[in-house]
């Protein structure tokens, strides 16, 4: 084994403390070290994935206490896939924001990169941990660094967005705690595998109550419909790359948490239907709201929420094809939405309020960025030969195999709306005349590299989906095999 999963948490936390010290000696270190840490995490997760493929799930025990008492980290094909995706995106976000425009100041850039690192760490922690209270702690780490990053610009509206986020986040964390305590008082354990094993013993009413509280709490982070009022505000007001980080990393972690609840911990089959209902309502509400947005990032935000609704639907289908589709959607969404946020930020760079009309005629001034945005838009609509098509085909096939004809129809109808608002932007980029005199800002080299690498992934996966389908298959099989998870953790198959 190359390293241990515990490094995913230990190294970034250590680095977060060291950065202020090294910053005193070498100012650039506050930017370089987080990048190195994120790159390290990415390579670690890749090498661990290789190990897991050969030897099976890694269960790492912290501080010598064996489960179910101690905290353990589980690096399985499923969590490993998400970890790899998140750390990769974390690294790309870092790369994109390396020459951050506020970087003239030492303080803000230090805070920015530290918080970004913590955001990624927290999300990875949520995915890896096998203990629900530990998960709560990681969720709080993510939330608090999220509040900080949202209010990063000292503009008037960013504080508002951050406060809304905090308001919802605080309520969510309260209910999460209550749910955890209900479980603990009934089953006397906090270990997910142990809970899953003992769940049939639990009182039915309390079981429902705790699940409802869990869904409420995690739903806030997962941006499901009535709980996502904060999300568009945060995406709009946070710095551009952070929008990508939220869409690509944080939400994925939250979706993971809810999936873990429904697939592993609880044994309600009705929860799958709930997933479909919630996902469908989220999808419809978000996509219809996105239709008439006048701000680019807000539109992307609603689109992102809608996509997560689609992921929920796919998880709610519950078959292996459904999980496969959901994971594929998550992967595509992470890559494509980041690409859109990245390139979109440059298209409306330095414009007040970042209206969609600011992209007018940018195709001439920022050709590469515009092409990348267009590729992203086409991909997220699900046009072949881009990556988005395969995931759309996967979810529709999964739904069709379960005879959900109405669901397919609704998804497709709403997809048309999605196509409409994305194409309206693309049309503006290429076929409208630029009104303002100000010269648009050219992307710096590091940002360009980040965007192009995402664009290349979109194209490569689009032309050759097999590159990833094997990994997704294993991950889906791993998630569905509940007994194996319990066995792995409780008997410490190391």
């Amino acid at each position, binding site marked *: 084994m190359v390293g241990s999963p515990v490094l995913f948490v230990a190294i970034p936390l250590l680095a977060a403390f060291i950065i202020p010290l090294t910053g005193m000696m070498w100012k650039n270190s506050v930017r370089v070290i987080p990048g190195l840490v994120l790159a390290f995490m990415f390579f670690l997760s890749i090498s661990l994935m290789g190990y897991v493929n050969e030897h099976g799930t890694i269960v790492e025990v912290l501080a010598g206490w064996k489960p179910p008492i101690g905290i353990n980290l589980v690096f399985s094909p499923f969590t490993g896939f998400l970890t790899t995706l998140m750390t990769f995106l974390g690294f790309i976000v870092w790369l994109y924001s390396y020459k951050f425009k506020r970087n003239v100041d030492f303080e803000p850039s230090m805070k920015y990169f530290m918080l970004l690192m913590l955001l990624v760490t927290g999300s990875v922690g949520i995915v890896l941990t096998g203990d629900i209270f530990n998960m709560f702690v990681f969720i709080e780490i993510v*939330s608090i660094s999220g*509040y900080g990053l949202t209010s990063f610009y000292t503009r008037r*509206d960013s*504080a508002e967005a951050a*406060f809304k986020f*905090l308001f919802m986040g*605080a309520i969510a964390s309260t209910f999460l*705690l209550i749910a*955890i305590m209900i479980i603990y008082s009934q089953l006397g354990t906090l270990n997910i595998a142990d809970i899953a094993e003992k769940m049939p013993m639990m009182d039915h009413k309390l079981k429902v109550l705790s699940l409802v509280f869990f869904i409420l709490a995690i739903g806030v982070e997962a941006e499901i419909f009535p709980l996502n009022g904060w999300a568009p505000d945060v995406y709009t007001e946070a710095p551009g790359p952070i929008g990508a980080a939220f869409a690509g990393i944080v939400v994925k972690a939250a979706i993971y948490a809810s999936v873990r609840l429904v697939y592993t911990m609880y044994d309600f089959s009705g929860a799958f239907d709930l997933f479909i209902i919630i996902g469908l309502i989220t999808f419809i509400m978000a996509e219809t709201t996105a239709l008439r947005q006048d701000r680019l990032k807000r539109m992307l935000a609603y689109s992102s929420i809608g996509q997560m609704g689609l992921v929920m639907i796919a998880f709610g289908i519950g078959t292996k094809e459904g999980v496969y589709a959901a994971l594929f959607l998550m992967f595509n969404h992470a890559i494509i939405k980041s690409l859109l946020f990245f390139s979109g930020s440059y298209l409306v760079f330095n414009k007040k309020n970042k209206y969609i009309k600011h992209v007018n005629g940018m195709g001439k001034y920022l050709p590469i960025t515009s092409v990348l945005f267009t590729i992203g838009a086409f991909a997220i609509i699900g046009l072949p030969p881009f990556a988005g098509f395969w995931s759309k085909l996967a979810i529709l096939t999964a739904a069709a195999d379960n005879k959900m004809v109405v669901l397919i129809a609704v998804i497709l109808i709403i997809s048309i709306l999605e196509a409409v608002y994305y194409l309206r932007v693309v049309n503006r980029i290429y076929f409208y005349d630029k009104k303002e005199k100000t010269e648009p800002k050219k992307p710096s080299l590091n940002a360009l590299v980040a965007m192009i690498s995402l664009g290349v992934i979109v194209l490569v996966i689009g032309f050759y989906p097999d590159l990833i389908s094997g990994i997704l298959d294993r991950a889906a099989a791993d998630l569905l095999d509940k007994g194996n998870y319990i066995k792995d953790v409780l008997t410490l198959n190391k």
Partner: protein
Amino acid sequence: MEKYLNILNIAIYGSAVLLMLIGLYGALTKKSLIKIVLGLSILDSGVHLLMIAIGYLKDGTAPIFSPGNEDKMNIMVDPIPQALVLTAIVIGFGVTAVALSLVIRLYRHHNTLRIDEIKKLKW
């Protein structure tokens, strides 16, 4: 004695739930940002109390294995909720601090503390 214990139980759980309800009421109905933050804080405290109450044991001792104390295992209070509540208190404190700093910034920008007047980001 049993009755007394019951009443105590009800009192503790009841006050925890009551605190939570008060906090929730404050957070959901009061228009002042400060009061909302206070409400969230009270809500948190209620949950913490609830957590402590779950681990409570009548006449229990501190969960420390010391010489001469090995046989008192079954009358020790459950240590895990206490550990958890400590963590939760710290996190709650952090969140409250962030919230208050945001409130200060909101007040500077908007010159008001009414949450229904701070809604530039919508739809």
